[in-house]
């Protein structure tokens, strides 16, 4: 549906325009949602108006002034002092037609550090992504009422924290931009590996995250980390079709049918990351994208350039202090220098207690023990991982790994 695409693109621009006039984020956001719903019912019947953005802005503005009028009327009824009514409908601001930047400002607002990440995610999807509450609720497998409440609490927080609708000041911008990228990446991950439930991939969220990253990238093309994040998501998402089998079962990277990978998406990701890396100021998203690119470009699993991946993980490991990165680094070490070296690093990580009882630690150790042909230990670790994961497809996969090795031992 063509106009649906258009609506999603226009949603943040219209919201920005309304916010410039009325400032009340919560009410403005509701008004824009109503305008979007009106468009979704009217446009298919009557055709898309000549200036769809102006149409939406006008409908949303009307909702806003209706709302304000009824608030004022209520106040007037409630208090005799009618004149003290504080609301005045401001004149439309003719000068500000900068829908482009509004989208970015909105992003800053929705990903503000005052919000919890789950609120920021929900708000970004609604206010910037133009998704309905029902769609967001569906994507996160929660009842619509719960999601509506999460969104309205997020708006309340914005109101209480007095977060202004404008670009963050220069000093803050870097940190605030990182928060935006983090929220986009979380949306992608939620879509790519659902943390719970049967459905391993919820493609819509991944696609939405990529769309949002594209929006930010077009606004700030000179930022290498945005390009890195966009590339990372494209290069990861390109493997989607190969990643699960017909029964939604997990297929690990080295067993995937690489002919199912999306070559066009890989090409785009590789181009993006290659250009970003030459610009200097290498960051974590760029490094992860570079690693994904090395995997994607290997014709078969055994062609994978592991020394290259190891080099990239070593840089990443120095840059960020993240136990998951340490774990992945250990896998790369094992692939280049043998499983014993990798297992040593995992033992060191475990001793720090940072990933204690995390299923990934057991899963990776199971894999490396299997490489080292220590089947009994591998089985124990796969089973320990299965008992700890909250992903059903992953649990099934780990159970199958353990069973496969047990079958081998029985022979």
């Amino acid at each position: 549906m063509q106009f649906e695409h258009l609506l999603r693109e226009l949603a943040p621009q219209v919201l920005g325009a309304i916010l410039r006039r009325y400032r009340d984020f919560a009410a403005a956001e509701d008004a824009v949602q109503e305008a979007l719903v009106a468009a979704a019912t009217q446009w298919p019947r009557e055709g898309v108006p000549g200036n769809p953005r102006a149409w939406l802005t006008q409908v949303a503005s009307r909702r806003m002034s209706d709302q304000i009028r009824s608030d004022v009327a209520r106040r007037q009824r409630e208090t005799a002092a009618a004149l003290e009514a504080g609301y005045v409908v401001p004149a439309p601001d003719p000068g500000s037609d900068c829908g482009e930047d509004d989208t970015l400002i909105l992003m800053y607002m929705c990903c503000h550090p005052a919000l919890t990440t789950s609120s920021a995610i929900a708000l970004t999807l609604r206010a910037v992504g133009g998704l309905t509450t029902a769609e967001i609720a569906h994507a996160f497998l929660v009842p619509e009422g719960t999601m509506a409440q999460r969104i309205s609490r997020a708006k309340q927080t914005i109101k209480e924290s007095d977060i202004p609708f404008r670009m963050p000041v220069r000093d803050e911008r870097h940190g605030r931009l990182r928060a935006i990228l983090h929220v986009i990446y979380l949306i992608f991950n939620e879509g790519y590996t659902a943390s719970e439930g049967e459905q391993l991939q919820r493609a819509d969220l991944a696609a939405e995250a990529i769309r949002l990253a594209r929006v930010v990238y077009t606004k700030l093309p000179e930022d290498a980390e945005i390009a890195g994040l966009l590339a990372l998501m494209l290069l990861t998402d390109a493997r989607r079709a190969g990643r699960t089998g017909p029964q939604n079962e997990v297929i690990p990277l080295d067993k995937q049918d690489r002919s199912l990978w999306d070559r066009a998406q890989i090409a785009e990701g590789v181009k993006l990351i290659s250009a970003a890396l030459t610009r200097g100021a290498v960051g974590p998203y760029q490094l992860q994208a570079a690693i994904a690119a090395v995997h994607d470009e290997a014709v078969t699993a055994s062609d994978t350039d592991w020394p290259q991946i190891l080099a990239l993980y070593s840089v990443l490991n120095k840059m960020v202090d993240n136990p998951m990165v340490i774990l992945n680094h250990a896998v790369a070490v094992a692939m280049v220098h043998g499983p014993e070296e990798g297992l040593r690093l995992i033992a060191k990580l475990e001793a720090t207690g940072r990933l204690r009882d995390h299923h990934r630690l057991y899963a990776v150790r199971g894999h490396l023990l299997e490489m080292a042909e220590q089947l009994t230990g591998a089985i124990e670790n796969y089973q320990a991982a299965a008992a700890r994961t909250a992903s059903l497809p992953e649990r099934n996969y780990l159970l199958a790994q353990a069973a496969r090795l047990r079958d081998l031992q029985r022979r």
Partner: protein
Amino acid sequence: MKFILMMGMKTDEESRSRGIMTWPQEDIQAHIQFMLGFNKQLKAAGELVSAEGLAWPDQAKLVRADKDGAPVTDGVFPESKEFLIGYWVIDVESAERAYQIAARASAAPGPGGVPLNMPIEVRQIMSGPPEM
């Protein structure tokens, strides 16, 4: 009428020694296939309200509030306790229909494809006030 069908897992040594962790790969796959198909059929029949699998009890905690209302967690359980590991909520015409569905879940294949005939607890879900 809505019912919840609850599937449990025993954690004592004896039960563990027969548990899914000990089955051959083929039998595990068959069991998983059965469960996926079972959910699909319920959905297709318009009887499924929701179905959830729970993480295994290894990480389960018992939580109580202390006198200040702060959570006190207890992670050590007595052996041989039975834990909920998954449930279905179904909306069906009669209790008999709920029992039929429960029996199908109970007969999920185990080692060698032999039906497990595991116990499924069936409980009716309270409804709203009767219509006037």
